[in-house]
């Protein structure tokens, strides 16, 4: 049965990195398509030459005019291939916040025709981002995204990170806040993701599995030439 993962969330929560990880894992066992559905950002996206080469066995669909000087991207007809073709796994990497998730509304009918259990709509959360740092803020963004995407969020992903300065403390602090979000919103925590070393250290602390979901160790693929040097305090 075809499985679809739709990753939405606040800007900078790590959707693209997770989308690549989900797709690469799925590609080990089945035919996989990944869709860059970010209609907002003009920089640093899934459709970058360096990322594409690593996606050899994965079909990548990008909006028209990505990585050009056009600021108003458009959705290509190929997005329909996600629904029409016989994939094992499809991953949607969607733009941030309500503005970004609006692009999904166009495919409402297609999503509605999926069978029970085929679709996971996942809110990727990073509580180290200023606008998703509190329970109230996360719930507000979550509600807005559901309205704009015309989809119901089925689960949350604790992907709390500080980029190069990440430790297990990020996942732990994320766990505490997302737990409360889950209790208040009724939306379960579907996954907790992070680099293996931090994820293992966090899991060893013995938190309630109900608010961890499935642990997903990830690798970082969005590396760039200037990343090796970061001034931190």
């Amino acid at each position, binding site marked *: 049965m075809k499985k679809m993962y739709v990753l939405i969330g606040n800007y*900078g929560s790590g959707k693209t990195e997770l989308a690549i990880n989900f797709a690469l894992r799925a590609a080990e066992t089945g035919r996989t398509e990944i869709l860059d559905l970010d209609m907002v950002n*003009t*920089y640093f996206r899934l459709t970058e030459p360096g990322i594409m080469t690593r996606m050899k066995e994965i079909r990548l669909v990008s909006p028209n005019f990505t990585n050009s000087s056009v600021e108003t991207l458009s959705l290509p007809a190929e997005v329909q291939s996600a629904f029409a073709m016989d994939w094992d796994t499809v991953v949607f990497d969607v733009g941030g916040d309500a503005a970004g998730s609006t692009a999904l509304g166009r495919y409402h009918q297609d999503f509605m025709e999926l069978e029970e259990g085929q679709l996971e709509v996942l809110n990727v959360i990073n509580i180290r*981002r200023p606008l998703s*740092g509190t329970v109230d803020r996360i719930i507000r963004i979550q509600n807005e995204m559901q309205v704009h995407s015309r989809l119901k969020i089925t689960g949350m992903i604790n992907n709390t*990170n*500080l980029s*190069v300065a990440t430790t297990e403390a990020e996942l732990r602090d994320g766990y505490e806040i997302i737990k409360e979000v889950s209790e208040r919103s009724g939306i379960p925590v579907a996954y907790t993701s992070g680099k293996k070393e931090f994820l293992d250290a966090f899991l060893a602390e013995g938190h309630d599995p109900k608010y961890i979901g499935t642990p997903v160790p990830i690798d970082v693929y969005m590396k760039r*030439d200037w990343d*090796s040097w970061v001034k931190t305090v």
Partner: protein
Amino acid sequence: MALTLMKGSEAIAEAAIRAGARFFFGYPITPQTEIPEYMSARMPEIGGCYLQAESEVAAINMVYGAAGTGARVITSSSSPGVSLKQEGISYAAGAQLPCVILNVMRGGPGLGSIQASQGDYFQAVKGGGNGDYHLITYAPSSIQEAIDIMQFAYDKAEKYRVPVLFLADGIMCQMMEPVEMPPMVEYKVDPEKKPWAATGWKPGDDPAKRAVINSLYINTEELTVHNNHLQAIYAEIRKNEKMWECYKTEDADYVITAFGTVARIAKSAADSLRKEGIKVGVFRPITVWPFPYEELKEATKNVKAILDVEANEGQMYEDVKLALLGSKPTEYFGHCGSLMPSTTEIIAKIHEMMKEGK
């Protein structure tokens, strides 16, 4: 204080607010629209003013007006928009108005592209507008460094009564990094400390306290005196305000000169080359005006050669050559438009220089 993961544009905007900026005038343009967007939400929260002007020209003249009252004011734009602001910047320099201007560079010339570039170096440091003037020009290389510099940018602008320019690029404003924000500064205009500011003189007040903000001098002798005064200020700034970073230059055989985002790529290249046993360092001007000429010469006195790397035609290369005055072999590598030089390309260029016996 806890670290947060912030986008460069949000972080620079918040840092300016924390440094006391309460007036933002601007006009949207990619890749810096997130700055006005952030300011539009944040300024009302703290009793500040966000105003989207009808154009970049209007915005810089609003900066002129607000700075004339002694307030801490900021505007931001990207390359073509900053070109439009040049007249106003020259006026502000002539009228000696402290303010902060952000240029988030994109590809040029003309409308160019929306991707990152360093093509506005000449415009920034060689005078984009008319007349003999300079702006203290910072070229931060990380988001945290931009935040840290913003904390004293207004102090410098006010100390010398000059506009301060941040020369960033699209990558700097679009990338996200972990940062720590400084505490909020509650800035209040003190007319005693800013006797030049127009703070509400009315008929009957002491005529000596009447402030006039102006850059026009009817009498040519007066204009000469004014210019001599400006030149004396620029000499002081050259003496006191140069900032630079030496990265592994002590034992280096080759030094790469680069600024901003490209300097980070250069550091990656230097680290890789050191793993091969080739001693490479990086000299990075943090202030591109005043340019650290003597410091670059000193840092490279024992090297075999210098490689200047930029995302432009080699605009800073002219200053690098001026610093060295032919005392060392120099080369340039880079791309114009919006293509960043890569680590691989820089490594290949150093190998090529070694092969040529440089």
